Structures are given as C-alpha cells and as structure tokens.
C-alpha cells in the first residue's frame, strides 16, 4: 500500500477550499484513500471528515491509498497539494514509484 508522510507548510493548514479540491481529486480514483494526522484519520473522499480532522500548519500527515489505482491517486493528490506540503525526510526510500 503506497503511503507518503508529509509536513503541511501552508500557513492556513488544509482548510475548506483546498480540502474541497482535495476531495474532488480523490473522488476520481477507485482506491480508498486515507489521510492520517496524529492518531486520527479520515477518508479523503469525505469533506466533512477532512475538515473535522483540522490539519494545521506544521502538522505531519500521512497519505495512504489502497486499491487498483493507489499509486496514481497518491501522485495526483501530491501534485494537487503542490507547495503546501513537503515530504518528511525519514531517511528511507518512499514507498511509491517515482
């Protein structure tokens, strides 16, 4: 299962507008996509779950996907986030294909 650890850089966190775009992008994929922040996680296809997660600037999130198009989904979401996040340097190779 591809998973990606990221730090949120956007000073507003993942707030309503970007969260809505995130949901729309995620919904194009069949895979189940989960975002985890701390000990809580949310289905990326649910705006309410995403908003209740309250992803604040500086927080670390993990994006994971499970399903037939999991790699593409993670890539698309990472692209969507753009400069709002940076990968967490864990010293290990990321699990997704380049």
């Amino acid at each position: 299962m591809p998973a990606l650890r990221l730090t949120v850089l956007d000073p507003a966190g993942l707030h309503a507008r970007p969260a809505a775009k995130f949901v729309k992008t995620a919904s194009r994929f069949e895979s189940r996509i989960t975002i985890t922040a701390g000990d809580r996680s949310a289905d990326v296809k649910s705006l309410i779950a995403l908003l209740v997660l309250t992803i604040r600037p500086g927080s670390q999130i993990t994006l994971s996907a499970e399903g037939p198009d999991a790699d593409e989904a993670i890539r698309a979401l990472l692209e969507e986030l753009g400069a709002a996040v940076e990968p967490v340097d864990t010293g290990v190779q990321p699990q997704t294909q380049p």
Partner: protein
Amino acid sequence: MVGLVLVSHSSLIAEGLRDMVAQVAGDEVPVACAGGTEDGRLGTSAPRIADAIRSTLDRGADFTLILLDLGSAALSLELALEEFDEADRARLRVSEAPLVEGAVLAAVQASIGASIDEVADAAAGAASMPKMPGA
C-alpha cells in the same frame, strides 16, 4: 447532477453563500438563491423559492436539494413545493442541515457527481460538525 437551492431571509446571505459554494465546488453544480422578499425586504417568498427550484431543474439538475435558514422559510418552502407536480416533487429534497455548512458540504459532494442521497447525507453531516474540532 444534483442542484442546490439556498433559501434565506436575506438576499445577501443567499447570494454570499452562493459565491462561497461556487468557490469550493466550481460552476458546474446548478445553484439558485431565494433570498428575501419580492420587494427586497428581509423575509422569504414562496414564488421566489419556486422560481429558484425551477431554475435548477431547468439547468440540468436531475435532483435538487433545498437548504433553508429558519422560521418562516419552512412555511414559504411548503407553499413553493405545492407548485410542483408529483413528478417534479419527487426530484426535490429538503435538507435539515444548517444553511452555510450544509450548502458547502452538499455542493462539494454534488460537484463530484454524487447521488441525491449522498449529497443529502453530506449536508446532514453538517449538523454535528464541530466548529472548533480539536480545540
């Protein structure tokens, strides 16, 4: 595609909310406002609500979810619904959700091509959404 009708006592609230909804959900979701009375006062108007509903159906909404603010909005909406025949009435759903949060959540759900049940469920979730989660 599911459309939305925003019913408020204030045209400014309804139109401002339409702008917010368009920003998060894009332009493809048919959204119509019924804010204030015909003569521009605070209040609700059954004919304006009926017009708004009709405009969403005319713009290609298979179903329309109606969100309203409070008080007599429900009364005007009931009157407006009587304007529609059974076939059109079956395409309309009234949400219990709080107007602002409900509209935003519903619009995002509608914009991804969700069914009327999914859109109505998304709006309904707004009722229990904390204002300051984790605070």
